[in-house]
């Protein structure tokens, strides 16, 4: 079995708490061969994350799987008894994730042993976000939760009254997320009090990014919004052909987001002006990840593409399995990705 060498950590959705998408860590070369591949027991709808020698991935078989990146073999798995759509997040010795029964778990990242669990009233598809010793996550029960990282004890909840599938973005004193009631919320991260809300034209599944003082988020109303992070006032919005569940990525003052119309859009961060758009598939639901001048994205119908962030020109394309919202992990030496058939790939 070939050996993948990892010098990278990719600890949560889109790499890190700043959701940078791994910028600068991956040279953008086309993968030359499959290092290993592994078929899990059921479909994968989440994105893998990476820390040390272990790739962590959740599966609709109800387990968090830890896979040795050198061998492609499973090191351990942690069963929850219910399907998992939530992308795991790693913080210190813990891996955090939700499941379809509405529980959020913290497990030991070296052994898979359960440390604590929090119960909500419906499925948790969002990825838990950790900031300042607090775990933030939304649930389809219509509540947003803040829990202590160390114990799982719930510190506060906020009732939106509508399903939450948007993974939050947390920063000092603030946490941002979208909701199926069309709103984007900015809450005080210490108290759960509403700082501001902004309204789009339809439900929101996209997870926000923050850049240049703007909250960037897509809506099922077909538009990508840039909201002033301090006030929630719309700076600009850009309309595409269909809904946007993809979460935007930002590099060099360019915002990249996929739309369900099949196009990947590159917009100017300040003005929302279109730099370029490229149709890469019939449907895009996953988020793009950015490296050194290259954006990589998995499309619904199975295409994985790398494009030049400046021009949108295709650098390479691979036909792998279908992806609903899974994003690849990019390292200096390998790309890790998963598909809805439950295949996990390591590409060199």
């Amino acid at each position, binding site marked *: 079995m070939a050996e993948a060498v990892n010098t990278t950590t990719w600890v949560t959705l889109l790499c890190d708490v700043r959701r940078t998408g791994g910028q600068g860590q991956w040279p953008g070369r086309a993968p030359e061969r499959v290092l290993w591949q592994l078929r899990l027991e059921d*479909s994968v709808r989440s994105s893998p994350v990476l820390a040390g020698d272990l790739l962590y991935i959740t599966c609709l078989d109800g387990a968090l799987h830890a896979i040795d990146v050198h061998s492609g073999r499973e090191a351990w798995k942690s069963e929850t008894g219910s399907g998992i759509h939530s992308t795991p997040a790693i913080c210190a010795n813990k891996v955090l994730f939700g499941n379809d029964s509405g529980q959020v778990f913290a497990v030991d990242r070296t052994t898979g042993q359960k440390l604590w669990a929090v119960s909500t009233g419906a499925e948790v598809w969002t990825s838990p976000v950790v900031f300042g010793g607090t775990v933030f996550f939304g649930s*389809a029960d219509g509540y947003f939760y803040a829990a202590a990282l160390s114990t799982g004890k719930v510190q506060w909840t906020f009732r939106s009254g*509508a399903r939450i*599938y948007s993974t939050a973005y947390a920063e000092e004193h603030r946490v941002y997320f979208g909701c199926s009631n069309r709103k984007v919320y900015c809450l005080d991260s210490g108290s759960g009090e509403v700082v501001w809300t902004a309204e789009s034209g*339809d*439900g929101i599944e996209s997870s926000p990014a923050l850049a240049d003082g703007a909250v960037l988020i897509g809506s099922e109303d077909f538009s990508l919004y840039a909201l002033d992070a301090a006030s929630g006032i719309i700076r600009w919005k850009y309309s595409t052909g*269909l809904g946007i569940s993809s979460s935007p990525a930002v590099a060099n003052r360019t915002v990249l987001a996929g739309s369900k119309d*099949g196009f990947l859009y590159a917009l100017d961060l300040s003005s929302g002006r279109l730099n370029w758009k490229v149709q890469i598939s019939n449907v895009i639901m996953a988020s793009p990840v950015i490296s050194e001048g290259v954006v990589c994205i998995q499309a619904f119908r199975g295409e994985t593409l790398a494009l030049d962030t400046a021009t949108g020109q295709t650098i390479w394309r691979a036909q792998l399995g279908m992806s*609903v919202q899974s994003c690849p992990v990019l390292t200096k030496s390998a790309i890790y990705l998963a598909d809805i*058939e439950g295949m996990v790939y390591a590409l060199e």
Partner: protein
Amino acid sequence: MNRRTFVTHALAGTTGLVIGGARARAAGEVNLPDPPPIHVHGLKDYRRSPLGMPGLFPGRVIEIHDPNAIRDNHVSQPVVRRMIEQGMKELTGETSPAAAWARFVTPNDVVGIKINPAGAPACCSSPEIVREVIHGLRSAGVRDILVYDRFSYYIQAGGYHALLPVGIRVVGVEHRESDVSGYDTNIYCQADFFGEWETRSYLASVVTQQITKIVNIPTLKDHSAAGVTGCLKNLGYGSFNNVNRTHKAPITFTDPLIGVLCSTEPLRSKAVLSILDGMREVWHGGPQTQLQQFIGQPGLLLFGTDPVAVDTIELAIISKKRELEGALSLWDRNPANMAKDGQEYSLNPRKNLFFRQPAHIEAAGRLGLGVWEINKINYSKVEMG
């Protein structure tokens, strides 16, 4: 009749029933093979519900149209609410929407809303309509509602999980190919169409074990094999597994399997109402095209309890649109019009991928599921807006 097959039923007393859609064959058309015998293995001693297909209003179809229902591909929630309220009242003769819904469901029912997400996101059951159906069911006191389809990834593409109210379960029966864990192995239709290794199609467990009523929300859409995909196709091929095996280009046995599946208990009895979503209209490339040039936005809804009658009207609407657009007739059987591959078919309305089988609607009618003769259908159109 130009296609016939023999259907047998186990456990309900073996009956022989010869079915098949009728249509005179034009000169130059191919002679298609007869379908194989189909064996139906249903529930023992199941008592058919009077609410089941063709339901309370055989042969009745209500069309509601509002020019403001959809603009620039955005469906208006308030307009759709008024359309559904009006349609339900017109269908039932009741004076309030809540009373209309109460003709079909009780507070103790577990209601499954059968969506069609197969064309998601470009053309699938509109979440706005699903939300209004949920609103209507709740107005009749129903508390336990789920939305289902066979394929969880298409449901996700449609965004239903994120767009529906709190408390609604969203159920995808299959998460990946050949996932049979969500099916009831006691209820199946068996036939060998093309020598496939698995000759059974099983009914989803969510239908047999969880829900007591089904509200069907198909879309206005052509279908490369069946001709159109409406109430019958959405219900039958969206509730039983392993149905793609009925297609082997250019031959398809959607006629008669669609009707046979829909006539199988308990699916037949549980399906009490159909609201066909005509906000958008796929007139070529269905069921999965994402090409907007083949997707119109007529902004209409069809209401009925008789899926055969509703689909007959749908067939007429799509046939008319295709004629206007210069597309092949859905009944075309000329081998010269067969596309060389799916790519050519998807881009060219003058090509076919299969010898389509719109006569599956008539075949379903002959199984007792409803009225297929268009001159016998009580069809009312209401203009709003």
